[in-house]
Structures are given as structure tokens and as C-alpha cells.
């Protein structure tokens, strides 16, 4: 059974909570004590029907105010896949939460109300999913029961969305007509829409081809931890532990270690379960090399003729997540793979309006939830690939050194 990570976005009105509730309910992932708690609360609040949104609103303030504050993670499984749903709120801190949820997602689920069609918000969702390089995008045209399951309504919305998505970098797009409330096309194909020939939402998510979402070509192994037992059983053992960030590594491969540039060869790839013939993302393994060279956390093992960019200068799209605006010329801590360093903001090239995609080159700074292109100077060289080539070696976070808050999410261009 494989694991699939899905990010959903939208507001309460477009039926996102009902959709998630439906998926959880129909895959038997809601337990009766959870359902009873929700029913109790619904009654106390005087809701007319059992409000499935209460399943996802975990914090007291959220239930009191009827809003969702933070990214919530939900889990369900079918015999074919285990699903992790990052459920992000539509209104408060929207960009920050959606970017967080999308950063690890294989698929993004965007909902629109069939009666209202595409909203500015739908376009914003699609843009952020493409910026975060979520490989699969699914547009659910919801509440089809309220437009009499009309094919024309669906086609118009689907066409408009496809035209918009063509301007973005969207790898794989599916558009599905659904009614979350009535259960149409959620788990199984609906008899109410015989004109729709595609898969139900759940079936589509079960069948998504996700193996090629990862980069299996460019071998990248950021050294995370050096294992040295100093025990009588393993007096000279020296292993480089880490999670494969790209490509396929095999014993016998010629490698080079960055930043030193020293060459070696893979002697063995191991875990406690025994030797590994091939290591690929996202496996956590330990690599031993044939030569005794000085390697520490933050170094990177790669192939001699396929190396990442080694540079102290970065050009990156950055989503600002700090309550305080970015300080032009300011210094921040940066974490990239397993390599910490410090960085200075050299230039804000432009700020991007995520509704119009307009680039404002005169913008002085980035405030909370704003996105822009930055030029950064780093205190030590980083080993990067463009984010579109590798989401692991192309991403970084910025941290405020006084508050220790995570203030920026960066994607290398």
C-alpha cells in the first residue's frame, strides 16, 4: 500500500469540510465516538444538521468562532492507498497555511461551487499549488445537485479553469463534477451524471501515478548524521546517515562529496535490516564509502558528472510567513536540506500579486502572506537544484534569529 498526501483548500461555503467528512465517512474512517461528539456539539449550537466541519475544527477557539485556524491533518485508507489530507482554511492566514499544506503534497484538491463558478480564490488556490509544484491538481466542481447535474454548467467551469491553468505550470489536471452532500462521484460514479465519463474522486486519487513525482535521476544524498559506534563490534565503522533526496544510489557507484569535491565510491548502503541494493527517495539509509574522507552533517554525496549548483548566491521565490515584514538587507538563519547557514536579503526583485500575477518591481518589502522573488547571499555555499527539478534540494526556510520563528518558505529558481 502506498501513501498519498493531499492538500485541500477552500472556505466553508464551498463544501470542503463536507467533502472531507464524506471521504472519511465513506471509507469508514470516522469513529462513532467522534461522530457522537460532533452530533452533541451540533445540537448544543442549534445547527440544523450534523455539522461535519466540527470534525476538522480541533481547537476550542475554532469551535467557538466557527472558523478554522490552522492546518489539520486527517487520515484515511482504502485497500489501495493510505491518504494524508492536509486540510487548510480558506480565509485566515490563507497563503501561509496553503503553502505549508502544499509543500509536501502529491495532489491538491480545489473546490468550487457549481452555482458560483470560478472565484478569485479558486485561481489563487491553483496558482499556489503550481508555485509549490504539487504534481497533481484536481478541481472538484461541487454542489452539482443544486444545478440539476447540468453538463453545460460543468463544461463552462471546466473550460474556464483549463484555460487559466494553461498559464500556470500544472503537471496533471483533472476536473470532476461532484456533490459532496449527496455523495455523487465521491467514492463511486454517480448515476445522476451519465454524461461524465471520468473516475470518481476517490478512484482518481487511488489511481494517480505518483512514482514519477520524485526525481529518480539526479542522485542527491544530504548527509544528516555521521554514525560512529566506537564499539568493540564496530571499532572502525563510519556511516553517513540520511534520507535520499534524489536519484538512485547503488553500492559500487562512483561519487563525489561536496563541498570538498573529494571522489570516492559507495562501499555499502545499509539499514538495521541489512544491505540495500538500491536507495531512492524518500528512503532513510546509511552509506559507507570506500575511502576514509572527512565528511560531516550538511555535506552532500552526489555523482561526479551530475552535481547540484554550489553557490552562496540564491535567486528564489519566497513566501513570507512572519508577522513582521521582511527586512530588506536583513539577516536571517537559513536551513536548506541538512545544512544550516545565515543569509542576507540582497534584493527584492519583485512582489507577485497572486490574484493578477502582476509583478511589482517597486515593492519595498514582503509582508505576511506575500510572495516575491528574492536575491539572497548565504554565508556558506549551498548545494541546490531548481525547485522545479527537485522539491527537496530546491527548498529552504528562513528563520528570524531573535524570535526563532519560521518567517519564510523559499523555492530556488
Amino acid at each position: 500500500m502506498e501513501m498519498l498526501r493531499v492538500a485541500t483548500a477552500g472556505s466553508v461555503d464551498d463544501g470542503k469540510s463536507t467533502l472531507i467528512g464524506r471521504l472519511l465517512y465513506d471509507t469508514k474512517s470516522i469513529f462513532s465516538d467522534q461522530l457522537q461528539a460532533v452530533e452533541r456539539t451540533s445540537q448544543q449550537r442549534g445547527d440544523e444538521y450534523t455539522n461535519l466541519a466540527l470534525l476538522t475544527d480541533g481547537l476550542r477557539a475554532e469551535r467557538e468562532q466557527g472558523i478554522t485556524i490552522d492546518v489539520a491533518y486527517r487520515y484515511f485508507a482504502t485497500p489501495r492507498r493510505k491518504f494524508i489530507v492536509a486540510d487548510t482554511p480558506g480565509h485566515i492566514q490563507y497563503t501561509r497555511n496553503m503553502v505549508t499544506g502544499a509543500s509536501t503534497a502529491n495532489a491538491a484538491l480545489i473546490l468550487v461551487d457549481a452555482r458560483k463558478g470560478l472565484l478569485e480564490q479558486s485561481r489563487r488556490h491553483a496558482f499556489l499549488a503550481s508555485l509549490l509544484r504539487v504534481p497533481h491538481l484536481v478541481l472538484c466542481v461541487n454542489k452539482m445537485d443544486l444545478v440539476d447535474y447540468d453538463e453545460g454548467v460543468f463544461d463552462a467551469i471546466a473550460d474556464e479553469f483549463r484555460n487559466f491553468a494553461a498559464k500556470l505550470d500544472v503537471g496533471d489536471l483533472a476536473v470532476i463534477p461532484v456533490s459532496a452532500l449527496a455523495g455523487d462521484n465521491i467514492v463511486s460514479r454517480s448515476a445522476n451524471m451519465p454524461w461524465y465519463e471520468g473516475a470518481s474522486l476517490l478512484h482518481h486519487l487511488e489511481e494517480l501515478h505518483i512514482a514519477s513525482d520524485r526525481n529518480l535521476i539526479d542522485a542527491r544524498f544530504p548527509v544528516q548524521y555521521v554514525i560512529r559506534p566506537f564499539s568493540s563490534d564496530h571499532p572502525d565503522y563510519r556511516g553517513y546517515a540520511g534520507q535520499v533526496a534524489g536519484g538512485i544510489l547503488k553500492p559500487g557507484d562512483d561519487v563525489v562529496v561536496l563541498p570538498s569535491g573529494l571522489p570516492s565510491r559507495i562501499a555499502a548502503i545499509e539499514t538495521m535490516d541489512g544491505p540495500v541494493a538500491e536507495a531512492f527517495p524518500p528512503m532513510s539509509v546509511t552509506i559507507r564509502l570506500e575511502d576514509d574522507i572527512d565528511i560531516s552533517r550538511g555535506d552532500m554525496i552526489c555523482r561526479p558528472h551530475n552535481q547540484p549548483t554550489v553557490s552562496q548566491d540564491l535567486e528564489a521565490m519566497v513566501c513570507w510567513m512572519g508577522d513582521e515584514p521582511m527586512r530588506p538587507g536583513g539577516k536571517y538563519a537559513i536551513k536548506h536540506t541538512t545544512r544550516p547557514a545565515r543569509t542576507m536579503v540582497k534584493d527584492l526583485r519583485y512582489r507577485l500579486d497572486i490574484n493578477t500575477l502582476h509583478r511589482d518591481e517597486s515593492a519595498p518589502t514582503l509582508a505576511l502572506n506575500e510572495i516575491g522573488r528574492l536575491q539572497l547571499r548565504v554565508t556558506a555555499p549551498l548545494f541546490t537544484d531548481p525547485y522545479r527539478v527537485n522539491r527537496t534540494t530546491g527548498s529552504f526556510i528562513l528563520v528570524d534569529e531573535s524570535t526563532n520563528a519560521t518567517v519564510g518558505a523559499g523555492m530556488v529558481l
Partner: protein
Amino acid sequence: MTTAHYELTHLDALEAEAVHIFREVAAEFERPVLLFSGGKDSIVMLHLATKAFWPAKVPFPVMHVDTGHNFPEVMEYRDRRVAETGVKLLVASVQEAIDKGRVREQTGPRASRNPLQTVALLDGIEEHDFDAAFGGARRDEEKARAKERVFSFRDEFGQWDPKNQRPELWSLYNGRRHRGEHIRVFPLSNWTELDIWQYIEREGIELPSIYFSHERTVVERDGMLLWPNEHVPLLEGEQPFEATVRYRTVGDVTCTGAVESAASTVDDIIEEVAATRLTERGATRADDRASEAAMEDRKREGYF
């Protein structure tokens, strides 16, 4: 383990993620500790930690927050497992906190030391100056936990501020903290109860015997089956009876209920869990029934 298409099973992917988290903490923190109760989640954590650093030993101690109201089978298991692993065991004792006057014990027949664990835990963290504490909490357990980060920041009072959490992107964890603050780390965040059992089965991990079906004298109280003993005195009119039960969670004997079950092997339990309609905390934990926000309130104060 893998197919020709370079796919990982969900258990392999979850294991790889957890191992990555253990190594991140060992690399970035000076004094981590693993919270070990002898419950299945902490047992899986210790197993994963062992794998993460093999063939070296786990480079941090484990700490048991001990209410003094334990299941003897679990204590026996704890001591044996610790000896096998060669890991150092520390005990943060609720009894000690009571003796020192740090906390006052609840009285009456329904008294529980469960809430007092927070004080013993925070005292233990402060005494040893731990800067990271691994916990076995999972996001599928409870709705406040669904919003918890993998690296969860705690201020100098050990408090959790759910509305002011650091965004967590990709697998880039922000472990920065000032002196006196610490990070709770949850390597099992993305695991479900079923994943845990499937993993226990796959890895052949041994568990305390009370997880499996056995005969026990129990009493029904507030819809739960409690084991009457010196810490759980019988109330007026309660009739103890023999039942075939097992425990789905392991905690303080005063608030941990058994479920009627004939599941005597891990395979039986996997079948039972896959078919169950109650969450494990809803079925067996009196501490979470106190109110809708019981877990959130305890977590804010510094609970696990």
C-alpha cells in the same frame, strides 16, 4: 519491501520519515530524551530510534513519567526492554512531586494522578535540562493533536500555544530555541493506530502482555472497564466480575479502561482495529472524556 517502480509501502515511508526525524534531533539538539511509558507507541518509537542509529547505540536516554499507579506487566516489560537496548532509563516520579509538595493529590475514590504527570514531566525536563523530548502522540488520536507540529515548540513554562505554531514546510524542521525552552518532537505524527499495529506485526516487536486478550477482574464504571486494585477502590454498589479483556492503550491504572476482546495475537488485533468503530482514546481513556477540549487544555499546560 519495494517494487520495480521504486515505490515504498506506507509503512516504509512512515519509517523513513520517523528515522529522519530522530536523526535531525540527534544532530541539532544537545540533550534530547525519549518519553517512554511502556505503551505501544513509545515501544515503536524506541524501536525506530534503535534503527535510526544502528549499529551505534541510541544516543539519548529514555524517561518514564511514573504515576506510581502502574500495571505490573508494563513495569516488568519496561525494565527488560531497557536492559536489552542498553539505553539509560530515567524516572520522573509523580510520587516524588507529591512528597516534595509540588502538587497536591486528588482525593476520593475516583482520584487520578493522570493530571499530575504534567508537573513531573516538566520537572524532569528542567532537572536534566533536556532541550528536546520525543513523544509518541499521533495526529489521528484526538482533534487537538491533529493540529500539532512534528517539532512542537514549548516556552519556558512548558506551554503549548496552538494559535501561534511555527509553520512546518517540506521536511525542514525548525528546532531553534532559547535556553529554558524546549521542543516536543512527534516522530509518529502521521501514523494511525492501524499503522502502528501493522508495523508491530511486520517488525515482530514484543509488547507487554496486557495488550493481548486475558482474563481479568474488572468493574464497569462510567461505561469503562476498570481493574479494581489498591489505587482503584470499589465504589458503593459496584460489582466486580471476570471478563476476557485486553488494553488498547496503556496509562495510569486509575483512568485506563480495558475492552472486551478475544484478540490474542497481533494479527487478531489488526483485524479488530480495522473493524472498530471507536477511537482508542474514546474507548479507554477517562482523562479525555472530561470535556470536549480536555486534551487541548492539558496540552497547553505541557502534557504529552
